[in-house]
């Protein structure tokens, strides 16, 4: 296990460097100027040139290296050792061009926890809904209850979240007067966006659980348990679910990463100040530092979460480690 973790952590910088390089090439190729607001007033050309020079926007090679130097933490390390003036953050992702008063680090610090909270809430909700529905379906395959959960799952996967979100907003806060619109921070602000975000995950988890359960319920050891006289519910929760849950667990890793890095649509509909907006807006604004910073953070999170899932997987099912 230690070996696995060490190996993966050693690989991480290489993966990140590759991602950084690809993102840089793509972001640099975006049309337009990074320092100008397209709809705003245009300053004199001297001012534009000075700004571009200041951020190395006139020279891709030095931009690439300089940013790498800051973002990788090398600059922080060098300045700390030299006793100079290290940047405020170890990994310094630079300023935002569009939101001039904010650094990319501040933007991430303010939006990432929001997305993580919302994503976790959605995943917990999705697990509760999905596993329950999956078990109900698996116990009586092709019964009306099974068909009903299948139908709900299908709707959950196919209805886009801007439709679900807007509907929920119309029904609850506006017509029934319960819940909030456009706020964030109080627990009640989180319910509607979490429900909206959880639906596709819940649907997928329900199908995975059902499939796994049907497989497992036909196995010999379940028949043995029943023959021994273990009560029905206990067979399901104690013996069957344990194995049927494994596919769900391996799905949870990418699902968590996906849910926690924010959904642009859900964030927009519910005005959630999460990180998903930056993925879209930064590219639209050619906000280079934000594009690079967010991509690096997202990739880092994906690498860590995948590692975490692999570790958890071995912990839940020790056979994997031995094989």
């Amino acid at each position, binding site marked *: 296990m230690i070996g696995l973790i060490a190996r993966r952590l050693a690989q991480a910088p290489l993966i990140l460097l590759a991602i950084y390089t690809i993102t840089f090439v793509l972001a640099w190729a975006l*049309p*337009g*100027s990074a320092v100008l*607001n*397209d*709809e*705003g*007033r*245009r*300053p*004199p050309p*001297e*001012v534009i040139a*000075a*700004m571009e*020079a*200041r951020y190395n926007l006139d020279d891709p090679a030095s931009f690439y290296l300089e940013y790498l130097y800051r973002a990788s933490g090398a600059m922080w390390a060098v300045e700390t050792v030299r006793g100079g003036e290290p940047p405020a953050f170890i990994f310094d992702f630079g*300023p935002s061009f*569009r*939101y*001039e*008063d*904010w650094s990319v680090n501040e933007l991430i610090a*303010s*939006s990432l*926890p929001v997305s*993580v*909270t919302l994503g*976790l*809430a959605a*995943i*917990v909700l999705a697990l509760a809904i999905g596993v329950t529905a999956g078990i109900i379906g698996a116990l009586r395959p092709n019964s009306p209850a099974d068909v009903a959960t299948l139908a709900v799952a299908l709707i959950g996967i196919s209805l886009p979240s801007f439709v679900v979100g*807007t509907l929920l907003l119309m029904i609850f*806060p*506006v017509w029934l007067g319960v819940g*909030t*619109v*456009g*706020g*964030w*921070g*109080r*627990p009640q602000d*989180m319910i509607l966006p979490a429900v909206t975000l959880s639906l596709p995950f819940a649907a997928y988890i329900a199908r995975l659980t059902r499939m796994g359960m049907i497989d497992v319920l036909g196995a010999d050891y379940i028949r043995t348990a029943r023959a021994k006289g273990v009560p029905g519910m206990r067979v399901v*929760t*104690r013996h069957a*679910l*344990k194995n049927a*849950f494994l596919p769900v*667990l391996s799905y949870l890793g990418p699902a968590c990463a996906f849910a926690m890095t924010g959904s642009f649509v859900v964030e*927009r*509909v519910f*005005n959630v*100040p999460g990180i998903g*907006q930056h993925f879209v807006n930064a590219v*639209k604004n*050619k906000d280079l530092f934000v594009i690079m910073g967010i991509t690096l953070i997202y990739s880092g999170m994906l690498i860590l979460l995948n590692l975490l899932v692999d570790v*958890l997987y071995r*912990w*839940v099912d020790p056979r994997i480690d031995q094989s």
Partner: protein
Amino acid sequence: MTRILGVLALLLVLLAGVVASDRPGAPAALVAIETVDMNTLDPQRMSHNQDMRVGYALFEGLVRWDVLSEDMRVLPGAARRWEISDDGLTYTFFLHEGGRWSNGDPVRASDFVYAWKRGIMPDSASDYVKLFQLIDGASEFFAFRTEELRAYAGRPAEERTPEAALALRARCDEAFGAMVGLSTPDELTLRVRLERPAPYFLSLCAFATFLPVHPPTVEGWTSVDAATGVIEQKHGWTKPPHLVSNGPFVLERWRFKRELRLGRNPMYAGPFPARSESLSIVVIEDQNTSVLAFESGAADIHMDLEAEYIGDLLAQVERGERDDIHRLETFGTYFWNFNCTPSVGGANANPFADARVRRAFALALDKRSLVNDVRRSRERVARTLIPPNSLAGYRSPEGLGHDAARARAELASAGWTDRDGDGVPENERGERFPVVELLCTPVGGHADLALAMASMWERTLGVRSKLAIKETKVFRNTLDNRGYMMSRGGWYGDYLDPLTFLDLHRERDGNNDRGYADAAYEAMLDRANTEPDPLRRLDMLAEAERYTVEETMPVLPLYHYDQYYMYRPALRRDGTPNPGGVRGVSKHPRLVQYYFLFEKVPGDASEPAS
């Protein structure tokens, strides 16, 4: 199984932890919705309405406008009075003795010089540096500093030490004092010498870029870059608790895309104390969500209603079903640009290089129908660039109306007539009029308008058009390369003078997207600028505008922008106070809002009108 539950429990604990660590504060006395987040709270860097509104609440300039009056008269702000010399060149401002920054420091005349210098320096890159260049010597100083920085960057690396950079800055400060017409005879007196008489300068002093900043605070975040010699500014000072302000409000909290909270400034003793104890600005980018937030009572005023169903909302207002939509006629104009250069992006010949063709295209449009039937929002139809009746004493020209016969005649006089009977005009060499590419961006209804205009041109002139819809960045690039024939555009005036629009057509203006170059026109503006009599000057500027909207037509004005606010009126129809309504909202076309004037009518908002 217990291990799976363990994983779940771990997730739940994490969740609870994050929720517990992130709690919002108590609601503010008044909540306003903006649909775009603030770019910056640094006054000299501001160029957007939403930023400036916060700027006006936090900082107090020398003067303020009377935004609740019709003519936006100039009122004393940080300056209690001022004197203007007879030649209109020297302005002397006398500051209030009791003016205080929110940390208790006195407000000094030198604070204004410090702030304005930031606006003039190429280092701090104000989008509005042109406004400061009215001040005597500012343009020369700008050129001097640009040249100094260029020379410094050319020095060998070992000569560019921190000491050398500091010396460069000292020389810059010295040059500023010697070259620029700003002086402070004493701590409470500011003398400004202008390059030429500008009757609108006093009003300009109320503009956001001219707001003061607290020098010791800003200086703490300023450093000189040894490699380039540029004075660099970190923006941490614009966030609480660092921001020190001299206006009616102080910045209590600013959380990105969540809330910007203003509270009363206890140190403020000026003429505009805040009417609300606190004010919170919530940014909701999605129009649907922002309207729902207002409807559910989460906010008191919506500052920028642009929902697609605005026509339906207006119909409800007309039927008397609601009274919370407010239409404002703004100081802005929507137009389409003509590419005035000889070729499209340096390749194909451009028929719009000929002013007669541009006039023909303008005359062929039924703008009333475009606004009423296509947009369905019934704005004021525009024949001029400057909205008529928006400037006192300015007599707007007529402009060109809808005249199909004259449109065909203009096109024919430019050599384009249908020579082979196929309905499409050809020139004398027999080449057909090229298909006109109409360049626009995806959002905002430009494409609908373009399609309707295309059918009018085809009907009247026989010219075919096609749409080119591009993302904003690509759109912008295409404008800059002049790689288009016609494109959508628009402009809002920044200050109450015709020049805020007319300067657009100067060849060297950064916002001249049309490549329009006309020495005769610029000579007209320059002559007007030296005219001492303000009314005669306005007439000369009106003549310059007439020249561009009736003869040379670099842009095709379509309509003057409207802006919609959503708030419950302060008074009911019977004249009694309307609890939950908002007072103090300016309806002036300049769209300046002073948050410190906003006040919610007290009482139970759910109580029905008697």
